[in-house]
């Protein structure tokens, strides 16, 4: 027993305990021979030392209290507010709130493994499970339902250094385990997920009939096919703010002329010819201006034929890491936009029987999972991004077509609120910025709002997990990664400097010193 109920009201109930209990911890009590799970919200000392007894740093307040006739043990009791989660109804597969609070005098116990296991919807190791960590301070695993993550999306939100890439790594490891074999793609703007390459050889992932594949696509290998671009994409590439309305109108005409000629796929030269075809004596300089700007489309990332090979990127049991580091942010958005458009088209077309095996690179007959790092770049709350519209479409309609998205961001307040609210499972780690906390509070279910106050105090690797992939929100210690985590870590600058200095002393030529005899004093 850890405490006894003191009183209850519409906000929940309070209990007295002689133990220090962390906020968010699970406890339970017995009612009608059923264990009722409850969550500790906030605790404060039942009685405080007289403040004068705290003024002498040489004396312990207990010593002074005892001297004065106060029992120091009286200051070791705490009053905790708590809320009822409910009892687990196996037939419904969820916690049911009894809609009553425990009576005064009811004993409160630690929630044991027997009830904590019901926090998870699925069992660890079974098909569709993702063991993400343990209930904080307990040994009970927290297992997310992969089915719910893929169908209703997920967000991973954390300040920098709180462990969000690490957590995504854990999740991806689970998705690539033999009991899931998911097709996963990480859109990686920092190139920090390459260590996941180890998955293909780690024994935890390999069984006789399965070995996951990890494909890392380097920036130089990413190509945007010219004919995949929309007219607005062309405009955003070509227009640096100096493109006149006449230029834009003429370019649109050329583009639509080409499209109307049933040219689903075309090359830059074909488009350029179409632009030239519009030349007359009145628009000579305008066409020249368009052509000059068209030169930007000859950058190495654009190609007449090569594109993002969807079928190659999304394979069952394969992790594809699209490393877009070093690429300009607007081009990253363009790549994301084209990849998402093509993916949505492929899944929608396959589900609606428009595409079959004969449609190379468009037939995608299984759900896929997509991780978008730095999601606020691709769906910003304010401002425009090429990828925002299609990302919102996928988040709202992706469920029907089996496109699961994991939005990862360190600035939820800069992430489009509609997009964030479509992520029905949330992994939220340490967030200090109050605006970001507010944004999170608006986008998560009400039951976990009690836990929002815990956000700034979460340690690295601790998270609040809430939403549809779990039966009740929980504070979780993310499990250790099976693959190494070197890229995402902060650099230990002093150690690197010391090593560099040591290397320099050993390998570089000694510094030339002035010859005193030759020094003529100039």
């Amino acid at each position, binding site marked *: 027993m850890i405490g006894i109920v003191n009183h209850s009201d519409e906000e929940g109930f309070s209990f007295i305990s002689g133990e220090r209990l962390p906020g968010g911890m699970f406890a339970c009590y017995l009612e009608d021979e059923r264990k009722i799970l409850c969550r500790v919200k906030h605790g404060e000392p039942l009685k405080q030392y007289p403040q*004068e007894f705290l003024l*002498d740093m*040489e*004396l312990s307040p207990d*010593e*002074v209290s*005892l*001297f*004065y*006739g106060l029992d120091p043990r009286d200051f070791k009791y705490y009053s905790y507010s708590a809320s009822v989660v409910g009892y687990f109804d196996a037939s419904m597969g969820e916690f049911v709130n009894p809609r009553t609070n425990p009576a005064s005098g009811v004993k409160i116990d630690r929630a044991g493994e027997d009830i904590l296991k019901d926090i998870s919807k699925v069992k660890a190791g079974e098909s569709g499970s993702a063991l993400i960590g343990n209930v904080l301070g307990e040994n009970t695993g927290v297992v997310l339902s992969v089915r719910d993550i893929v169908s209703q999306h997920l967000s991973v939100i954390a300040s920098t250094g709180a462990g969000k890439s690490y957590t995504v790594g854990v999740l991806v490891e689970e998705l690539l385990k033999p009991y899931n074999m998911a097709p996963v793609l990480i859109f990686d703007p920092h190139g920090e997920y390459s260590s996941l390459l180890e998955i293909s050889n780690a024994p935890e992932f390999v069984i006789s009939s399965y070995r996951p594949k990890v494909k890392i696509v380097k920036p130089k290998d990413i190509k945007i096919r010219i004919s995949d671009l929309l007219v607005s994409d062309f405009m955003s590439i070509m227009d640096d703010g100096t493109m006149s309305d006449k230029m834009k109108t003429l370019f649109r005409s050329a583009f639509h002329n080409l499209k109307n000629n049933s040219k689903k796929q075309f090359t830059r030269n074909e488009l350029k010819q179409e632009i030239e075809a519009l030349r007359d004596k009145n628009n000579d300089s305008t066409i020249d201006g368009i052509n000059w700007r068209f030169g930007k489309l000859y950058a190495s990332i654009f190609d007449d034929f090569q594109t993002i090979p969807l079928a190659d990127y999304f394979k069952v049991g394969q992790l594809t890491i699209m490393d877009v580091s070093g690429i300009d942010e607007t081009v990253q958005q363009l790549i994301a936009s084209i990849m998402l458009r093509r993916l949505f088209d492929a899944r929608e077309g396959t589900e609606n029987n428009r595409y079959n095996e004969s449609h190379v690179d468009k037939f995608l007959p299984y759900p896929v999972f997509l991780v978008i790092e730095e999601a606020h770049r691709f769906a910003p709350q304010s401002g425009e991004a090429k990828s925002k519209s299609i990302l919102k479409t996928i988040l709202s309609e992706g469920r029907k077509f089996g496109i699961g998205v994991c939005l990862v961001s360190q600035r939820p307040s800069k992430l489009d609120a509609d997009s964030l609210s479509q992520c029905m499972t949330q992994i939220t780690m340490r967030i200090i910025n109050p605006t970001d906390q507010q944004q999170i509070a608006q986008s998560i279910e009400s039951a976990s709002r009690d836990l929002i106050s815990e956000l700034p105090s979460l340690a690295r690797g601790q998270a609040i997990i809430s939403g549809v992939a779990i039966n009740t929100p929980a504070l979780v210690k993310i499990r250790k990664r099976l693959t190494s985590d070197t890229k995402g870590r902060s650099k230990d600058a002093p150690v690197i400097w010391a090593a560099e200095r040591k290397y320099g002393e050993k390998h570089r030529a000694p510094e030339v010193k002035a010859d005193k005899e030759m020094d003529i004093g100039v």
Partner: protein
Amino acid sequence: MTLGDIIRVEDANTYVAKIPPDAKKERIGSFIKITKDDGLIVGVIKNITNSIPEDLIPYIDPELQPKYAPFNEDFRNSYYFIHGLGTIRNGIVKYDIDSPPDVRDNIEILENEELKSFHILNGKPSIAYFHPNSDALSQKVLIKMIDQIEAQCPECKAMLALVRKYIKRNL
């Protein structure tokens, strides 16, 4: 030196002692003792009152009674109100009185060594009777008690300083 004798015992902790007419009066807050066969009852002078014996008032001219009676010190009777704090029996200190003194028991000033002994509980310096008696004693009395303890138990000076601050703010 006898300060007076107990003329009334109201409860285990509250007694009234009559002061002989010519005796030098002790100050409020002074520690006193009542010696019993099995040890000492330790208390503190909580208050002093001076009153006019009613049996002398009739001898004053009725018209002058309202004028002189309240100031007539020649016929005054004085009383100590004593608050019992604890006992020392066979060298064992207890901050509790289970057997109050009797009427006619003498009260005396607590000697310095006795005061020191009274503030050692289970081998450690203590004024643990302060908290349970703080409602019954005024701030002035408590501060005066602290001053006396501090003089005899200088090792407790730091703790007494904190208690003094606490009493000044709260009581």
